[in-house]
């Protein structure tokens, strides 16, 4: 059985011309990247598209990967950017893209359009409610609470200060709970629950 090779070694091998090494990178990270994109974008097909974009971008930019960050950090950054790009495209992509369209300016970044069709009060689960969390908070929240990524690493992925990450995670959690219809009771604050409840 082959011992697991570090990502950076696979990158090195691919840059030397070994396409199998790239395939192994894709297979190793496909599941994680897919789940990241799925939770950020909220749609399986969009997530699949974003993953394809991610790995094509990784392939294209791999020579720019200097190894000064862990490959996983760098790849997550590429993936998050692919999700942001897809969010933008989803809101403005015409059915038929003709020559010259790519020169049009991108519209400003905003949250993806949530699909409210399946909403009904009280039935939100966390996954459905995630789509209602503002995108910047949602990305930080997914990385922290679904991917168990350390705040320091999230800061590197998103290229923002660590304090910003912590704030986004907190704000994202609060927004998620509200989107799930959780009220401001304090059932899980044991130190104060008894005296605060009427």
């Amino acid at each position, binding site marked *: 059985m082959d011992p697991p090779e570090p990502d950076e070694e696979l990158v090195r091998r*691919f840059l030397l011309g070994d*396409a199998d090494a790239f395939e192994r990178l894709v297979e190793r990270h496909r599941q994680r990247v897919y789940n990241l994109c799925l939770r950020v974008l909220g749609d399986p097909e969009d997530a699949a598209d974003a993953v394809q974009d991610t790995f094509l971008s990784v392939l294209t930019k791999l020579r720019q990967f200097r190894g000064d960050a862990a490959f996983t950090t760098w790849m997550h950054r590429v993936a998050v950017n692919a999700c942001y790009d897809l969010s933008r495209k989803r809101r403005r992509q015409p059915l038929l893209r003709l020559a010259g369209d790519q020169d049009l300016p991108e519209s400003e970044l905003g949250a993806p359009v949530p699909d409210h069709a399946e909403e009904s009060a009280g039935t939100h689960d966390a996954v459905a409610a995630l789509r209602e969390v503002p995108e910047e908070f949602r990305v930080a929240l997914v990385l922290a609470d679904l991917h168990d990524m350390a705040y320091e690493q999230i800061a590197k992925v998103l290229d923002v200060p660590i304090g910003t990450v912590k704030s986004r995670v907190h704000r994202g*959690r609060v927004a*998620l709970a*509200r989107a799930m219809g959780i009220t*401001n009771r304090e059932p899980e604050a044991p130190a104060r629950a008894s005296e605060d409840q009427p």
Partner: protein
Amino acid sequence: MSHPDALLAEYVDGALAEGERAAVERHLASCERCRDEVALARAARAALASVPETPAPSDLGAAAIAEARRRAGSHPAAGAPPGRPAWYRWAGAAAGIAAALLVVALILPHVGNAPATTAAAGDAARAAASPATSVETQNVNYDLSGVESLATSSRGQEGAVFGSNDQATQVPVAASVTPEKRISFADAVTCLDRAFTEPTGQQAPEGQLVRVIQARYRGVPAILGVYLLSPGAGQPADIVRVLVASSRDCSILTSTQATA
């Protein structure tokens, strides 16, 4: 005191050092807003902890892997790469294609595009693109970036892309993968023509059709046509256009192009 949002995340995680935790709890004692938020954040964190991982489709990343193989095959790096090089997989098929081209050049010089065939046999580096004659079947779910990549990768490499390397991929892939009912070459071309001719104001596909691929686009069974457009007067093609049509109803899915 302002609300310590950045500390509240770690407070909920239970990851604050003793001093900071005590400071947060002092704040919570006097701040109803933050108490409420801590309760909400705890509930959200617990809810997310029970969200299961979703299995990724097994073909995810196939377009990038195929592109990586194409690059590795057409641009082998100096030095001996460890493991099995990409060309190894295609060498046999490429040899078969080369033999087939030779047979075509010798036996059927009057069929199809004879000058192109002759040129391909005689001078691969400057060969004109061969017109497509068959449908490649790919188990790939393209997206817009994938289609753009297809156009870009076809740009300025007529000899490589439409010569032995890419043609070689037709043989093993088409033989082993059948994501949808196989479409005949004639039906595929008809579908592309219909998709890009019927809407008013759209031009009929122009240029030389050099590849026809049966795959999927955003999950929809699709036909991808790769066309080379030349400025004329015997000049080499300087535009690669990729048209994508649904193979179900021959509607337009997307198109893109790359210029030399």
